């Protein structure tokens, strides 16, 4: 009886947690509030070096400062930046990022061993660049390899939107946004992976199609 009560309380706590994180960049039930939930993806010319391009993957949205201090990258989750050079939305190059013992390991840019929903990291591959994962509150640790740079650690969520009011509009409870709006993501953090590479390693010139995936070790 007592055990049942404990289980019920545990279930309630679980439900409350799921509910709180349901807004979580608010993606999909299968990944919401998990270590593989991608909140955002950015790709832009390097502000520091115009011959470089920067890829950003953010994970685990809506982390409070206290939650950020204990947040980690999942060693069983690989983050893959996909690059299509030929306009068919199939990856021709990938940059793969894994996490182990406080370090991020970046492989590529390189041709993938296979395309699609399954990815591989072959044992003979060596990481192109590594960095210590930056701890909460510490100065950013940047790993370099030639012109390549890598960072992994907690950051302010760069996304901004009045998501709460959007929800009210969609629900039929409001007919317009407020002015000023309220940034639902203000004061929250994400776990970021930032990789900067020479443009020459991802196609050189022209337009590339890019996307990011999170992938779980089998």
């Amino acid at each position, binding site marked *: 009886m007592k055990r049942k009560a404990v289980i019920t309380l545990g279930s309630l706590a679980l439900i409350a947690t799921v509910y709180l994180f349901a807004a979580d960049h608010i993606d999909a039930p299968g990944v919401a509030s998990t270590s593989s939930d991608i909140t955002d993806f950015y790709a832009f010319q390097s502000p520091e070096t115009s011959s470089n391009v920067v890829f950003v993957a953010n994970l685990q949205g809506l982390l409070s400062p206290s939650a950020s201090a204990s947040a980690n990258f999942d060693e069983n989750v690989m983050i893959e930046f996909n690059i299509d050079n030929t306009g068919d939305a199939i990856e021709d190059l990938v940059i793969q990022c894994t996490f182990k013992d406080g370090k991020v390991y970046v492989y590529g840019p390189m041709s993938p061993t296979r395309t699609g929903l399954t990815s591989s990291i072959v044992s003979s591959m060596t990481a192109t660049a590594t960095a210590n994962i930056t701890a909460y509150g510490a100065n950013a640790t940047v790993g370099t390899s030639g012109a390549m740079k890598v960072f992994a650690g907690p950051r302010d969520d760069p996304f*901004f939107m009045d998501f709460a009011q959007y929800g009210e509009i969609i629900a039929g409870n409001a007919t317009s946004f407020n002015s000023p709006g309220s940034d639902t993501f203000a*004061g929250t953090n994400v776990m*970021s992976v930032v990789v900067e590479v020479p443009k020459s390693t991802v196609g050189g010139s022209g337009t590339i199609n890019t996307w990011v995936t999170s992938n779980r*070790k089998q």
Partner: protein
Amino acid sequence: MKKTYINKFWAVAAVCTLALGTLSCGDDDGEMTPETSTTYVQEDQMGRPAINTVFVSADQKDNFNTTVPSAQGAAFQSAFQAKLLALNPDYTTNLLTFSAAAFTGALATDVLSVSLDGTTTFYDGTNVLTGRALADDVITVELILIFGGPDATEKPGLTDDNVSANDKAFLSTFPYLATPW
């Protein structure tokens, strides 16, 4: 159990032999080096901002995340179009002169195009979809394209969430994202 495994092994070996000379076999371009590889299976995926959140129905969100981009257009364009017209029944075209079919066709293949030749921005008044920079007000751009009509003036209450910048300044040096709160 063991027998099944062995049968599978020989079945794979037989297919490899058949494929030899014409197709690469497995993941290592036909090389038979005794290499081990770690396999990962995709769980989440993202190209442009907020596409899954806005255009994919609740029961299809996981499916969208595990459909390769090259198959997303065929699988999701019509549902995206229905969603667009549900969000904005008055939709005709938008600032990019896209019909509902053309707009949702472009959106359903959820990849972010990035220029390697200059300015990278979601939209800055001149450049359209040449990347996504940290400071880009992507949500307002998407709201304009969904609700604003051909000249971005329709439904003004819905074309700007009036949150136009991040709550912390970005850095001018790598890793560019602001320190955490």
